[in-house]
């Protein structure tokens, strides 16, 4: 040990040596924290992944309600994924004008059914569906493949029935578009054969469409939309929202999707919340356990701490030594826990996720960056648990008279 390294190096060395003195106890402490951390890390990643998968899965179930003009002709389908292609339109700011309870998300869409677009075969009827990517919850969740960037102007998404390759060019009303993404098969006709683009891109075609069709279709006016797809807020009843909408707006028709799916969505969301609370509770229990353990460790080492104080250790050095010891143990537990959690995730991937995928149920893992952040958060949380557990005993010891500590009191 170099003389010039100073007291911090000495305290760090002492902390490490103290941990090494009671190897079995240290190993048990590290193992306990590692176990909690592994469960917390794997649990957090799996739950966040399930949440994402559920969110996509739920979105794939379609909207709970569809709001269209009263004159629009509608066909009931199992899943409300796009609004009906009709010339009857609604004001674009219809839902923004009133604050209605029970609506979680509202996605406006413009749907133009035309055989003059030039896309697909000659004279083929195509649904051009304009959506807002920021509010959409029924189109993008169905993306089977996409370019590695966010959708923008000049991009289109095609339904699964269209065979154009990803990244290729598609000319619509004379304007070139890049095939940004392709949807999975939904079984809903409009989705299967539709061409999806941002509302702004669709409105940008207005002039070309007017020239080719001889008139401007009403849904291509900036202040009009074909309709809205609605997702109900947690706990909201379909019937209540429906009545509320109909009582506020005279010119609308409200079409309900499969109400069973709404119930499943709301029920599973509540279940997820419960699981998250359970993991938080487990981490809290670990913090209490570490606190009790460090209280005992500090108590056992009173004589040594008193001796250090007697020969010149400052209060902050006593606190620092104890906290460093705790952080080293719980931080190491955190690191081991993350490694263990990663193994658990691997196991999970090879068993349940593989089984789900075989069954055609999509499971979307958390992004790698988010996973790394979750791992870092777990290690930091483990170290913080150590600090939280050891802080009070450390401060209490540092405030005691050295003589009291040496006599085994304080």
């Amino acid at each position, binding site marked *: 040990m170099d*003389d*010039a390294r100073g*007291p911090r190096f000495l305290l760090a060395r*002492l902390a490490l040596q103290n941990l090494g003195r009671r190897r079995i106890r240290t190993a048990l402490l590290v193992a306990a924290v590692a176990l909690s951390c592994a469960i917390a890390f794997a649990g957090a990643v799996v739950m966040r992944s399930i949440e994402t998968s559920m969110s996509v899965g739920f979105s794939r179930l379609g909207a709970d309600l569809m709001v269209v003009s009263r004159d629009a002709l509608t066909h009931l389908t199992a899943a409300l994924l796009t609004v009906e292609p009709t010339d009857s339109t609604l004001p674009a700011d219809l839902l923004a004008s009133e604050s209605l309870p029970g609506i979680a998300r509202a996605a406006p869409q413009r749907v133009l059914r035309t055989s003059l677009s030039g896309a697909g075969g000659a004279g083929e009827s195509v649904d051009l569906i304009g959506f807002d990517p920021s509010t959409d919850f029924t189109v993008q969740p169905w993306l089977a493949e996409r370019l590695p960037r966010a959708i923008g102007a000049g991009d289109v998404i095609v339904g699964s029935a269209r065979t154009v390759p990803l990244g290729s060019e598609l000319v619509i009303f004379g304007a070139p578009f890049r095939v940004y993404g392709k949807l999975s098969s939904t079984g809903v006709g409009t989705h299967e054969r539709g061409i999806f683009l941002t509302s702004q891109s669709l409105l940008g075609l207005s002039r070309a469409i007017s020239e080719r069709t001889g008139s401007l279709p009403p849904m291509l006016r900036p202040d009009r939309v074909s309709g809205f797809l609605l997702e109900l807020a947690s706990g909201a009843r379909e019937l209540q929202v429906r009545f509320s909408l109909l009582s506020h707006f005279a010119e609308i028709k409200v079409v309900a999707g499969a109400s069973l799916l709404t119930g499943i969505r709301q029920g599973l969301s509540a279940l997820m919340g419960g699981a998250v609370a359970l993991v938080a509770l487990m981490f809290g229990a670990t913090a209490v356990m570490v606190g009790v353990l460090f209280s005992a460790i500090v108590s056992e080492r009173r004589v040594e701490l008193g*001796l250090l104080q007697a020969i010149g250790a400052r*209060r902050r*050095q006593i606190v620092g030594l104890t906290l460093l010891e705790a952080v080293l143990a719980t931080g190491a537990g955190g690191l081991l826990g993350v490694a263990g959690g990663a193994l658990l995730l691997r196991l999970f991937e090879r068993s349940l996720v593989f089984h789900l995928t075989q069954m055609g149920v999509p499971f979307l893992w958390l992004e790698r960056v988010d996973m790394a952040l979750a791992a870092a958060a777990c290690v930091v949380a483990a170290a913080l648990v150590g600090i939280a557990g050891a802080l009070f005993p450390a401060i209490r010891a540092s405030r005691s*008279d050295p*003589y009291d500590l*040496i006599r085994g009191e304080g």
Partner: protein
Amino acid sequence: MLVCEALSKTYPTDRGPVAALRGIDLEVKSGRYAAIIGRSGSGKSSLMAMIGGLSRPSGGRVLVAGTDLWALGSDARARFRARHIGYVFQFASLLPTLRALDNAALPLLLDGRGRGARARAAALLEELGLGAHLDAFPSELSAGEQRRVVIARALVSDPGLLLADEPTSDLDAQTEREIMGLLARVHRTRGTTLLLVTHSLALAAEAEQIIQVADGTLVP
């Protein structure tokens, strides 16, 4: 010069407060060898702890070389202890994970005076006959050798005041003689003020000043 003025200490207990010391006034001149004697429970160790800045008195003052020890803040008092007071406790007070050399250098290292600390500790250990055991851990040393490492640690800051609280109570007679001879030699050769707590009248007889404590007060 060590001065105690109206020093008192009361411990709270379940049966009410118990007075360990009641208004002690004493003075030990610099460079003297003084022994504090008294029966078990007389308050001599409590007196030593207050003189050494280890236990806060309930009342009174302790002046070491003119510094009112208990008027200092916690960190300043710790710094004062590290620089001006050496301690030899009645138990083997070494850190088990540190070598003899590091144990002896500990007060300087904790005080941020690490440069040359080990060289100084090594010289002291050599002087005390432990030159061959610098790298030994406490568990590898005999009780007498451990106590000599403690004495080296107490002297490493070259303190003006050396406090020894029954330093030989757990040692055999021969080792006790060695350690007491060592302390007396340190006092003579370095001019360190030595304050020894003991219940042995034979050991106290060698001191230049005897302070007798009984029932928390000084016996005149």
